[in-house]
């Protein structure tokens, strides 16, 4: 049991029509570990995350959570599997018809059937954890700035204290300072909850800060995995080019001039 990875991804393939997005991805994430997947835009990072969560069905391959195959789960088993997860979406994906606290407490109210008054208290506490004052609890998401929305999204993801948290581009679209605040929050949340986290990003500053291990995805495959420190001198020309953000190198952007 101890050696079993929390998340085990094996040979996952996914195509949309003629376009192959994932072409046999293998990746392990150990319990309590933080793995960050880096890669350029359109290399299949988000699709991999969604396949792991079961929001998309992979065409081939297997995803195991705690050794249990997720691809063919349905009904109650699937709910039980999803219960272990929390996810912060790229655009926060807050429900704009609900207030901030209803967003944060959504799972507590609907999933765990907690009375609304208690759920509100928990929500306010979670908001405090991500550095938001109780006054925002009664606002609606449209009244918040992008950084605040991300923080509410984070509060929602951690509200039910999940075992596994996914972060989809947690710092994209934020200024460097707010991005660092979010990074700190992610690290704090992980330490407090002891959760396993899998993140995708193309922001190297964020990757360095939150990762134990880094994996690079390119053309639908994981081409490099290593410790976060090793990423600086990986010896892999693809990783080097990405980490140092150079236009020249083995990775050719599909540009037409």
């Amino acid at each position, binding site marked *: 049991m101890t050696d079993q990875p929390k998340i085990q991804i094996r040979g996952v393939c996914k195509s949309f029509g003629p376009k192959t997005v994932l072409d046999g991805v293998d990746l392990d994430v150990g319990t309590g570990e933080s793995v960050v997947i880096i890669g350029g835009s359109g290399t299949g990072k988000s699709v991999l995350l969604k396949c792991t969560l079961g929001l998309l069905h992979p065409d081939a391959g297997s995803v195991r959570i705690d050794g249990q195959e997720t691809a063919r789960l349905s009904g109650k088993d699937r*709910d039980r599997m*999803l219960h272990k997860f929390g*996810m912060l*979406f790229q*655009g926060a994906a807050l429900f704009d018809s609900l207030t901030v606290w209803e967003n944060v407490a*959504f*799972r507590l109210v*609907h999933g765990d059937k907690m009375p609304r008054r208690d759920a509100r208290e928990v929500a306010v506490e979670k908001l405090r954890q991500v550095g938001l004052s109780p006054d925002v609890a009664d606002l609606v998401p449209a009244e918040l700035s992008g950084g605040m929305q991300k923080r509410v999204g984070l509060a*929602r993801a951690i509200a039910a204290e999940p075992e596994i948290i996914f972060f989809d581009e947690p710092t994209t679209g934020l200024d460097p300072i707010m991005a660092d605040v979010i990074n700190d929050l992610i690290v704090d949340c992980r330490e407090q909850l002891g959760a396993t986290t899998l993140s995708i990003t193309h922001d190297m500053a964020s990757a360095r800060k939150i990762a134990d291990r880094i994996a690079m995805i390119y053309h639908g495959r994981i081409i490099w995995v290593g410790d976060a420190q090793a990423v600086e001198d990986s010896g892999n020309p693809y990783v080097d080019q990405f980490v140092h953000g150079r236009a020249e190198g083995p990775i050719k952007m599909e540009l037409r001039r």
Partner: protein
Amino acid sequence: MNLNFLAIIGRMVLSFLRHAGRLSTFTVVSLLHCFTPPFFLRNIGRQMVEIGYYSLPVVGLTAIFSGMVLALQSHTGFARFSAEGAVATVVVLSMTRELGPVLAGLMVAGRIGASMAAEIGTMRVTEQIDALTTLETNPYKYLVAPRLWAATLMLPLLVLVADVIGVFGGYLVGTYKLGFNPTNYVKRTLDYLEFVDVFSGLVKAAVFGFLIALIGCYNGYMSKGGAQGVGQATRNAVVGASILILTANYIITELFFSR
């Protein structure tokens, strides 16, 4: 050239079949979730208010003018063979059997079908629907089922109101403009009205309500590709629901009244 033409037909048939298949699956799954707990009563309530209460003005205006114009037109027609007395009966029968449900249905398709498609479509493209799933809430139960329930329950009530307002519109024109005796007009309205006239209209309304919500939710749920995709979903929802309403109207009428 010839081949090209065949290819176009082939593509159209395939696309039609694909949509029909997807819509059928969507309908079956939605219905299953309509009848299995948990039920999101708060959402059903919110939708009922939106559909039933806030549609009243637009449906009321449609009904009163339809009733009024119906009285005028049938009076002109019947005057040609001295049967003006039938105006009241014609107004009430047309309103309850046809115009009430169809016009209310079309207005609500524009108002509610469009807003359902746009709201659910936006939730789709901003990943809110994925977020629901990750929060252990089935989007069919949370979004689709409450809308189906609310629309199916509220449209008959709306149509009942539309019937009354439409008949009142006919009464106004009949008594103030065409010179009918008020008591006589009311008597003639009620004398020839049968239960089945109103009942068939209400059955139609329930079916139309279900169709409006189903098509609105389906188009929103399947939408993709940002603002343009949501725009398309909204348009398809209104056009699709309107055509289905008119088709279903014929079928239900045939089932009720042709023997």
